[in-house]
């Protein structure tokens, strides 16, 4: 286990170093100061700040999908032992999904994820 872990850790470190090296090459050979450094807006002068305030819908989308994400994670332990857990496990999960199904219907009813 430990040596496996050490392997994974080395892999993680190299996963950072290899792209790092690839990104470092241009620093040595690429030209510098050849272009205009203003934000690109198809050649127009940028108007106002780029720190836009965007729609609250994005927030709602990510919030709701995190909830579903968490729900799915709960289903993983069940899925890999479906055969051991049998009917009781199945009905436990069905109940779990049905309760969240109510929430899903609520979202549908309120049209919360509609992009209008």
């Amino acid at each position, binding site marked *: 286990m430990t040596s496996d872990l050490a392997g994974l850790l*080395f892999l993680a470190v190299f996963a950072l170093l290899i792209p790092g090296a690839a990104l470092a090459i241009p620093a040595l050979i*690429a030209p510098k100061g050849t272009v205009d450094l203003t934000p690109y807006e198809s050649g127009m002068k940028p108007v106002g700040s780029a720190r836009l305030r965007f729609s609250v819908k994005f927030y709602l989308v990510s919030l709701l999908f995190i909830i579903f994400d968490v729900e799915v994670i709960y289903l*993983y332990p069940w899925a890999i032992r479906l055969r051991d857990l049998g009917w009781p496990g199945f009905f436990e999960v069905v109940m779990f999904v049905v309760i969240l199904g109510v929430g899903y219907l609520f979202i549908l009813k309120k049209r919360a994820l509609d992009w209008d």
Partner: protein
Amino acid sequence: MQLLAERIATWLGMEGLPRQAVVAGVVLVVALVVATVVLTIAGILTWAERRVAGRTQSRVGPNRVGPLGFLQWVADGIKLITKEDVIPAAADRTLFRLAPYPVIVGIFAAFASVPFGQKLIAADLNVGVLYLMAITSLVVVGVLMAGWASNNKWALLGGVRSAAQIVSYEVPSVLAALSVVLLAGTLSLQGIIGKQGGWPWEWYLFYNPFTFVAFFLFFTSAVAEGNRTPFDLPEAESELVAGYNVEYSGMRFAGFFLGEFANVYLLSAIATALFFGGWQIPGVTPDMQAASPVWQAVGVGLFALKAGTGAFVVLWLRWTMPRLRVDQLMGLCYRYLLPLSFAMLLGNAAYVWLVPQWAAWVVQGATTTVGLAVAGVFVRRVFYHIRHVGDDVSLDLARGESGTFDPQLQVRVYGAFRRRHAGDSAS
């Protein structure tokens, strides 16, 4: 959890050297190999995309560098390395520099657990499927970082759209993969492949109607997660120029770009492992394959073929489908994909319990027959239309040497063909 590097280190032995140093050395080699493989696959796919695009739009595509323009991606890579790494004056310099890392590392680490062959896997994790889902979610962080750090309106909008899209579509894709996990009873990708067989009727794709639908759910949401057309709103050229990576240039841009293309192959590879039997060869048991290097090589080739076909379909989709609108995008995910994938999951579970073995075989046979028939009809229609477009599918054309290539003529011929068959339901 079994690491290829660890096995090689044990096999090498290397008495006298500190063991951790040997492991580190072998891991470095494996990591370099994985990196090379990822880069090569992504590079070849960028070439393939342009060829497919050319073919689909009746033009030639890159054909100057190497045979059929195959080395175009190498030329592009060299060009990108020699380009200036532009950091806009308004950008947040630190985050701007760091943003490509989560994307590259996420994709790269995911490839470490892709089962290219029975023994060709860098790390066969016992939480394989979940690991893939988790590690690729680092991409979201990179995309948001890039969008925000660029300090550009389009980059920010693209990054935010992309993040919202990836987070949303992750749910149906994970659920669809769960349908397979349920049947296999393991999260390890090698374990899942081991439960399938080489023949199409032994694949999980045709196991029952639920898995058949689950595959399409998985594929659709995986394409959406990769921000590929028809789900490429985050990059929408016509409105956001290039989305979150609009300010990037040189190698940093290449990082995002290669990440996207490596992701295309990754999703096809995962689909191959989950639904198409991975490296299993028809008529050859895993034990026979383990014993013979020749069968091993055939298995690796078969996996590459299946995953390559999947990647081709993704590229093909891009040049065939128009882009979705933002409201359609969310609607598709939460009105259709989400409930359907839940239904497929519970359906699969109930199927395991309710259907006796003999009936399961009948269902499997029927699903295979219907599935292959549908695929056959589809392929026939495609070739039917290609034939009537007015040019033939010859690769000579690709060299630009054939004298018969005339887009104008083609449009006229195909237009006449469509008018003649206007009433056909099939067209």
